[in-house]
């Protein structure tokens, strides 16, 4: 085993409602939908109309700025609705699934295929969208040749799925997926958790790196920083481990099969467990086998597509996007708390020693969505640094973003981070600032100006 990289800065947020290691397989549901909003920076151009017949893998829309990047239907069926919001903004394309699924055929023979041909197939099949470029955290540009491709083999976020459970039937697909990535870029890195018997050990031809320590050890951005940091002018690509399996299935079976295994978790889920469903499935469908706990008088819960740190607030009628691998349900906050800032708050989590969480390192918390305070300017110092395991001065970077100073942002390391990397800083911030949104604003400014 090669050198183990230790991540000391960070925090494992221990929550109640961890998914039991049982996988429930869902039958094909009635309705699926793809939302362009789930893809960062994409301006959608529709390719279908209501009533059109589509196959699994048929394009539904493309990106205006990159017309070669297709976004495809996860199922075969009929386009039943095109949802639009204000100013006719495209919200979602709904497809009513056929009882019998049929797939658009793709042909990949990895031993013969050239890189160009593979890129073309990935673009057409809609799976190109699973390749994310750093810097910026946007869909990769097919014309680029990246320095390397990074895949994190584990997820360290709160209540995140255990990839050994989620991917246990996908070992062959993963092998094929990594082989395909190697055609795109010979330099493929895989981050694994040290001391864990991972099913990914069997993957060959990639450079494996072992990480030990607390969240965000599983964040690919943190792994990149410790393996081969991104410099100005460089581009690397990242792919979610479950999406590598989807690419692998395309290679093996010649069809788009966007099945993912989601951890359905959180304190408000009655039977937290793993659910195998297709990308585009509605949250109702995914939550069905797990059930939400009955809520007592007037209390509310929040559905999150993703984990509590970086996920999207969702409704039951929303659909699972391409990048998420869990659904979390936690209580909505907002309860009255008399002089709460003075109370011991034993049921709440804090990294501050003015509370008592540090005495109970193993306690699992049932955290709600309460902000626990009012928004304030930056006051405390030296705190964010402890939750971003990179050689970056987060507060200076945040201030550079606020000032819109491109050169400073570049100098202070904006290329190395995306939203998820500062999620913990946002969690611990006593000034309650929205740091993830701030980072995205900064990145968007960089994209606009560069």
């Amino acid at each position: 085993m090669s050198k183990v990289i230790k991540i000391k800065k960070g925090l494992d947020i221990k929550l109640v409602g961890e998914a039991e290691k049982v996988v429930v397989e869902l039958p094909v549901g009635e309705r699926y939908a793809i939302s362009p909003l789930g893809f960062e920076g994409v301006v959608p151009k529709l390719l279908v109309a209501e009533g059109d017949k589509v196959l699994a893998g048929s394009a539904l829309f493309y990106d205006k700025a990159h017309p070669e990047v297709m976004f495809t239907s996860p199922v075969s069926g009929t386009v039943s609705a095109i949802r639009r919001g204000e100013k006719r903004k495209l919200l979602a394309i709904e497809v009513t699934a056929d009882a019998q699924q049929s797939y658009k055929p793709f042909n990949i023979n990895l031993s013969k295929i050239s890189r160009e041909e593979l890129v073309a197939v990935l673009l057409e099949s809609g799976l190109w969208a699973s390749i994310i470029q750093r810097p910026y955290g946007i869909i990769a540009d097919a014309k680029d040749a990246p320095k390397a491709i990074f895949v994190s083999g584990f997820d360290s976020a709160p209540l995140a799925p255990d990839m050994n459970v989620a991917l246990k039937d996908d070992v062959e697909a993963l092998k094929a997926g990594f082989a395909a990535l190697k055609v795109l870029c010979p330099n493929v890195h895989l981050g694994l958790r040290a001391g864990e018997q991972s099913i990914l050990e069997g993957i060959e031809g990639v450079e494996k790196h072992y990480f030990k320590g607390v969240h965000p050890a599983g964040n690919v951005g943190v792994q990149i920083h410790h393996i081969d940091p991104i410099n100005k002018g460089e581009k690397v690509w990242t792919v979610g481990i479950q999406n590598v399996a989807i690419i692998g299935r395309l290679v093996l079976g010649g069809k788009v099969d966007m099945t993912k295994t989601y951890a359905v978790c959180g304190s408000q889920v009655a039977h937290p467990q793993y659910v195998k469903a297709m990308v585009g499935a509605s949250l109702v469908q995914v939550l069905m086998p797990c059930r939400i706990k009955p809520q007592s008088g007037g209390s509310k819960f929040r559905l999150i597509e993703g984990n509590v740190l970086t996920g999207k607030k969702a409704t039951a009628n929303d659909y699972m996007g391409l990048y998420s691998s869990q659904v979390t349900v936690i209580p909505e906050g907002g309860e009255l708390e008399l002089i709460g800032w003075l109370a011991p708050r034993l049921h709440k989590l804090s990294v501050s020693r003015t509370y008592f969480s540090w005495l109970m390192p193993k306690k699992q918390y049932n955290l709600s969505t309460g902000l626990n305070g009012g928004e304030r300017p930056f006051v405390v110092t030296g705190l964010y640094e402890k939750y971003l395991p990179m050689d970056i001065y987060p507060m200076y970077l945040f201030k550079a973003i606020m000032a819109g100073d491109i050169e400073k942002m570049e100098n202070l390391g904006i290329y190395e981070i995306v939203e998820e990397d500062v999620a913990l800083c946002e969690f611990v911030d006593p000034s309650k600032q929205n740091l993830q949104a701030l980072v995205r604003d900064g990145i968007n400014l960089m994209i606009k100006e560069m």
Partner: protein
Amino acid sequence: MKQNNNTPLPKRLLDKFAPTFSEGGKLPWLHSFYEAMETFFYVPTDVTKKGSHVRDCNDMKRTMFMVIIALIPTILFGMWNIGFQRIDGADFTIWQNFWFGFWKMLPSILVTYVVSLSIECAFAQIRKEEVNEGFFVSGILIPLIIPIGTPLWMTALATAFAVVIGKEIFGGTGMNIFNPALLARMFIFFSYTSSISGEAVWFADARTGATPLGELANTGTTSVSMLDAFVGTIPGSIGETSTLCILLGAIVLLATGTASWRTMLSVFVGGLVMGGIFNLVAPAEPQTATEVYMSLPAWQHLLLGGFAFGAVFMATDPVTSAQTNTGKYIVGFMIGALAILVRVFNTGYPEGMMLAIIFMNALAPVVDHYVVQANVARRNRRAKKAQTIKA
């Protein structure tokens, strides 16, 4: 929020008066004050809208309140010491001395709080922000570091100066360059030197005498023992005399992680190193006041004057101190060293701590700049190296 019989009384009262202070009510210009009261009693019921769905339960109120808790031993001891330092203070009981000091100090605490809260509220109202909790701490720090005999109008003026010029014109809490409480003290010392200098100011009655530092400068010796100086039964500003109580506060601040141990430790190290250097070069038979100070054992410097109080409560202000960890070591060390340097060479003005902290407040951004620049240079070197490998 819907009301029912289970709604607790403070909430019912707050809700009752909410319309009065809202837009269209009778007192909309006091909205920021109302909001400050509301959030004092009830944590805002806001839920997360963007980003992380769950948040740490720590907030600025808690953080600032920890400083107040850390100050309690100092405040209580200081009140007692006001009474004890009366000419016949030793004839009274502990309680009598405490009450005497309590009533002497209460007016200046009230004045600083009323002045600073009003200004904070006014600026919060103009900026449409919530009232920041910073005044909570500055408001108690100011009475602790100015002489007890300071006239209230002077206290009020100094507080207003500190809050407006020291804080609000820079953009409010978090943006200020100088420690507001120290600025208030500096304002009094430089604007009203004639009316409050002299030795009587340190006492609450007609007794005259000098602080140990003043005594050292004038006579070459001091009558106080180092044990007295540690416990704090000596004349001086209310907050600064008891090194023991200040250390208790330091324990609270460090155990809760509220203040930076890097800053605090390096201030003391800086003071010891500078004091030690002077000890080495001091003549065997000190003649001038400077030479007397030079030969004062380094550790005794830390017990006298405002050194300990400044190190624990002033130098560690997160906003005006260095913001990088490396910077904290440098700035802290410089504060400690400069404080002793001023003491030794400017014997007409024996209290160097205030000047050292204010001076390093101004330099902290520069120190931080170079620390951050080193990080930038590291990043650029890495990029260059990557390019040469490629080429």
